[in-house]
């Protein structure tokens, strides 16, 4: 009898434990499906720090402006961590509604049939007008598919520009260099004054991808990956070899300071006035305004006159917002409404002014001009002006599979080059090998 009671007690305990887990799950699931009030959508992003605060402010404004939809932005870490989290979530049917994906991840999501729903479709299906030509020239096709259909909505768009410390340059009696040839002379004068001339924050983006765009050089076969799956990475070329031979020389001569692969470490060198100039993102403008205790200016990304005497536009960097597949119509309606809000000229202008990212629509650019923003802040216009330079054959963008890993190889080899552990030839050879293998592996996964 006693034994029976004990068995019953034990049974009850076990059942209670199982019930706890089940209930825990159910309550979890029901929380997401039982939306009877406003439709909630999740927006995963990679905007930390003050950028994150601006993102939150925009979401709050949107939520307050109407009562049908609620957008919840969630900071998921770096760009890499955000796309990774999105991939994991998608695989298990838990994808967010909107995800911010950076330039290097564009191929990953655009080539995957059925991962994202085209922004163009979402807008038109939900009764919004969509015209791709509303977007400024430079951002229009970077996140579009092979048929020029926009898949991801450009959001925080930026391009590499050169920032310079006005006082230090004045002191050395130099102006910010337009070309790399000019830079060598500038750097020598700065060095005479005891300054390191330059640092730069994103080797793959600035010295590889945009080097090719600015000089109108091809990056990969199949039209940089726009007309098919590329299999050949073309970084191992004479122009880039020449460039890195110089970079290495600048490093050795004390013209160029290399502070590792982290974005912040190189930017900090500029903020701390360890270097006189820094190449970063036009989107760094807002942050620099807060952190730099000195007057700084902005100008175009330098180019080699010997490579191309008529240099053109750079690639749009930053990231786009993708609507992920597998959600309900009501939720896409909310996504469309939010995208519509984000592309409004006023919203774009606010974002542009707060952060330094370029306005993505012509209307927003016009609004900023009309408002006299650039008259008061001429430096804030440099990014968008650079993006409005003439485009050429190889300035549309690039689309390469597993490119996030290729960028890792670039970072790795740059570290080694700067530490004197490898040569320029070996560096580009290693990057080519890794990159081609990534392209090949990726091409096999695309069905």
């Amino acid at each position, binding site marked *: 009898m006693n034994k029976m009671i004990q068995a019953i007690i034990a049974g009850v305990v076990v059942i209670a434990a199982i019930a706890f887990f089940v209930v825990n*799950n159910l309550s979890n699931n029901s929380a997401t499906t039982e939306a009877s009030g406003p439709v909630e959508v999740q927006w995963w992003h990679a905007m930390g720090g003050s950028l994150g605060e601006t993102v939150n402010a925009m979401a709050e404004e949107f939520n307050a402006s109407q009562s049908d939809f609620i957008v919840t932005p969630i900071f998921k870490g770096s760009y890499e961590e955000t796309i990774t989290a999105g991939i994991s979530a998608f695989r298990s049917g838990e994808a967010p509604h909107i995800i911010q994906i950076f330039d290097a991840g564009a191929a990953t999501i655009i080539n995957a049939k059925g991962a994202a729903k085209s922004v163009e479709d979402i807008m038109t299906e939900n009764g919004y007008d969509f015209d791709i030509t509303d977007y400024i020239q430079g951002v229009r096709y970077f996140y579009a598919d092979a048929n020029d259909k926009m898949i991801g909505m450009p959001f925080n768009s930026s391009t590499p520009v050169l920032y310079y410390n006005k006082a230090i340059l004045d002191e050395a009696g130099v102006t910010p260099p337009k070309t790399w040839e000019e830079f060598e002379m500038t750097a020598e004068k700065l060095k005479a004054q005891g300054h390191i001339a330059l640092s730069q924050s994103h080797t793959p983006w600035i010295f590889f991808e945009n080097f090719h765009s600015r000089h109108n050089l091809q990056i990969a076969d199949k039209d940089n990956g726009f007309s098919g799956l590329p299999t050949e990475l073309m970084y191992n070329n004479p122009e880039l070899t020449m460039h890195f031979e110089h970079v290495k020389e600048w490093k050795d001569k004390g013209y160029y300071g290399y502070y590792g692969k982290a974005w*912040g470490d190189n930017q900090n060198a500029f903020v701390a006035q360890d270097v006189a100039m820094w190449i970063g993102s036009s989107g760094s403008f807002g942050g620099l305004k807060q952190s730099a205790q000195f007057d700084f200016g902005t100008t175009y990304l330098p180019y080699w006159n010997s490579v191309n005497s008529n240099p053109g536009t750079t690639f749009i960097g930053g990231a786009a917002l993708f609507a992920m597949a597998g959600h309900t119509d009501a939720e896409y309606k909310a996504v469309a409404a939010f995208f519509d809000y984000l592309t409004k000229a006023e919203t774009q202008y606010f974002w542009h002014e707060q952060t330094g990212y370029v306005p993505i629509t012509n209307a927003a650019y016009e609004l900023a001009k009309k408002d006299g923003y650039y008259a008061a802040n001429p430096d804030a216009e440099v990014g968008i002006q650079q993006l409005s330079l003439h485009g050429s054959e190889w300035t549309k963008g690039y689309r390469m599979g597993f490119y996030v890993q290729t960028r890792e190889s670039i970072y790795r080899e740059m570290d080694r080059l700067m530490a004197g552990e490898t040569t320029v030839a070996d560096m580009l050879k290693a990057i080519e090998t890794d990159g081609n293998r990534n392209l090949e592996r990726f091409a096999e996964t695309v069905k």
Partner: protein
Amino acid sequence: MNRSHWLDHTILWVGILFLLTPVWLLIASSTHSTQTILQEGLQFLPGSEGFAAYKTALTKATGFTDTATGYRMLLNSTIMGLGFAIGKILISMMAAYALVYFRIPFAGFLFWIIFSTLLLPLEVRIVPSYDVVSQLGLLNSYTGLIVPLIASATATFYFQQFYKTIPNELLEAAQLDNAGPFRFFFDILVPLSRTMIAAMFIIMFVVGWNQYLWPIMMTTEESYYTIIMGIKNILSVIRESRVPDFNVAFALVVLSLVPPVAVVIIFQRWFIQGLVESEK
């Protein structure tokens, strides 16, 4: 003799300072203003700001939903530590009991299944583990945070070893007494294991509290963030060249290490026992 003792103490104090100084630097610096830290670097002596940074760290929310405050993150870490420790001890004790005190077919096979969990830490099978947990709908839940970590069977072995050292006479006496397996377990074995349970608890609490990668993957809702995730977010901010409030960041780091360290210091005896036992 005296001189060598003097030397012994010196060497010990060098070791202690080696361990203590880094954390002390953060504690002292957290009582300075961010401005001081930026201009003069980390500080060895306490500053004038007192514990203001701690108040900010505890109450200021970091995300959009205003839920990820220091309090909330500490609470989640506590739940994580307690849930992991309690869950693991409960389940291990029961499993070890079945293995030692019962004649079951395929006991060897079961033992090897349990044993195999020691071969593959979570970090290594993280992506498939995430898949499984999300298919079960356990993302953003304490269950999902805790239960997959319990799968590793270290504690089972420990309890198994411990039960084996308990004299057979106890069971014989219990059987003469007509005590069934449940009564034997709850009335005799559990009380006998008391100090062992305490020892395991300390170790497991620390392990659960200190989890890093798993909570980061598992949680997308800010209300489930743990304090260790808060630490990671500080770094993300710094790496993008945004200057954080250093004093608040230091305060958060100190807050993240005080509870487990306090547990280890207060329950020193059990901690040592737990450590020695659990790694045997």
